């Protein structure tokens, strides 16, 4: 057998300990299995199928309309998928004992969480955002005859990804607190779909909650995503900034909590 001295040791220690290999494992879990293409196929079927049906039936539809519809389809439905996919990421590993196994190797707890964030974040970006987005762009152009500025469309796609990351990071953070799946799934879904109810009770919440990033509400004609894609000025960017701040908070709280987890 080759002796240890013949092999090249991994030197990353401290908070980066094991990060590279953990990340490789997470990316393999998404892109090395059928997960990436089944997710992509599902969302292409839903998002692009709905867009195709609308574009084929209504010839009068314009860029503001299609980008608004795209924001709704690509923001609302995949946010459910993100929550369902990510709910098992930490709770499942704690429950099955694989977290304890991995953390018996030279892996820091920060690396464990960051590998989930990056791995799932890239998986969502490719399967739930980029692939349907490229097809949508082609649909707008060749089915609807609509020419959208590629730079603005790409910027809108970036905001859409961050919107989905908001739910991803919230779910991952909850996974560090709870051992039961219902809480980890229920809270983000309640937040995603309970916002409409909240706006009825507390209209001022529209200004801060992330809902309007993807979905126009009340007398709004377009969401932040559709405004960016259509080259219009968004009503208010505050929900986007609040979501970004919340994401930083979710990561920080998740890291803090997982350091204290007893495995």
């Amino acid at each position, binding site marked *: *057998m*080759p*002796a*240890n001295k*013949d*092999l*090249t*040791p*991994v030197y990353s*220690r*401290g908070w980066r*300990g*094991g990060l590279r*290999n953990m990340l*490789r*494992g997470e990316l393999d*879990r998404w892109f090395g*299995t059928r997960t990436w293409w089944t997710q992509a196929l599902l969302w292409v079927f839903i998002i692009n199928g709905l867009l195709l049906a609308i574009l084929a039936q209504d010839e009068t539809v314009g860029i503001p309309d299609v980008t608004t519809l795209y924001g709704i389809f690509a923001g609302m439905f995949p946010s459910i998928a993100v929550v369902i996919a990510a709910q098992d990421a930490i709770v499942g590993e704690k429950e*099955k*004992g*694989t977290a*304890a*196994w991995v*953390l*018996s*190797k*030279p*892996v*820091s707890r920060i690396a464990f969480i960051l590998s989930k964030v990056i791995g799932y974040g890239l998986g969502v970006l490719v399967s739930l955002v980029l692939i349907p987005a490229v097809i949508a762009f082609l649909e707008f152009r060749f089915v609807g005859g609509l020419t959208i500025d590629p730079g603005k469309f790409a910027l809108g796609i970036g905001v859409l990804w961050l919107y989905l990351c908001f739910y991803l990071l919230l779910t991952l953070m909850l996974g560090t607190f709870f051992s039961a799946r219902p809480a980890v799934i229920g809270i983000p879904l309640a937040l995603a779909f309970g916002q409409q109810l909240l706006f009825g009770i507390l209209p001022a919440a529209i200004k801060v909650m992330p809902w309007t990033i993807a979905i126009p509400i009340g007398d709004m004609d377009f969401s932040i995503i559709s405004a960016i894609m259509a080259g219009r000025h968004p009503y208010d960017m505050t929900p986007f900034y609040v979501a970004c701040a919340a994401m930083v908070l979710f990561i920080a709280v998740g890291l803090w909590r997982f350091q*204290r987890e*007893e*495995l």
Partner: protein
Amino acid sequence: MTGSAIVQTHGLSKSYNGTLALKNLDLTVQPNSIFGFLGPNGAGKTTTMKLLLGLIRPTSGGGQVFGLDITRDSVEIRSRIGYLPQDPRFYQHMTARETLDYTLRFFFSGPPALLRERIEETLELVGLADKADRPIKGFSGGERQRLGIAQAQINYPDLLILDEPAASLDPLGRHDVLEVMSRLRKHTTVFYSTHILDDVQQISDTVAILNHGELVAYGPIETLLAGSGGVVFSIGVKGDVAGAQSRISGLPFIVDIQSSEKAGVTRFLVSVNDETAAETQLLPTLLQGGAAIVVDYGRKRYELEEVFMNIVEGGSHASQ
């Protein structure tokens, strides 16, 4: 205690919701030893192992592995450890080969050909070469245990922590595991827990027994097997048994004599308070007159199971 101890704990304690799972554990594990950690279920064995690995935090006290603090330097410590959990669980989407590759890459980044060679030979060692490319989800308990042993030792660790390594293995698999552990002694220190006392007696040099979270016995296995209730001689006698008993009863160093008979041989268990005097005078006194025949004679050696049961049930064989 020595400066080169692999593991040292000082008053290491852990409680869950106010219930103490481990109480003031003081332990030293010397290099290249096979340290057997015994105790009934819930005694605190797995808790101790998890504390050493940094998977849980001590409530009080602390410890060092390789001289590094178990709380502060956990990642550094784990870079030199191999660990087999009690019920090993791996990623179901990976094969055995992928699991070993994934494990090895936490420690080494190359060269790829040598990494592959290490993986192949480890698969051979644990008898999983023919199942290397099968998904783990189809593995039996025994196969998962073998994979667990493989992943624990694939980095050639300085310390191997094995929680019930022979559990879920058939007798052949158990024999293989003991052989691997014995072979590894030259290169590594093995700290393992088990319920199989025969295995401990066969291969361990040091034993610790935990009961209800407390260390109740700890020391070299020979010391433990010799017992701690004073020096006891075991003597098999035939012929004039009554005369022999009468003669040795009068010796000044005799504390107690217990006798039992089996297949025509009377066995005396003779407790003494002066070992040297007993060694020189006991046998000649028994043989005086020539009417008694001594069939066997020697210091009583306890079986580990006897020691374990005595301790766990409240006996008095604790050696330290």
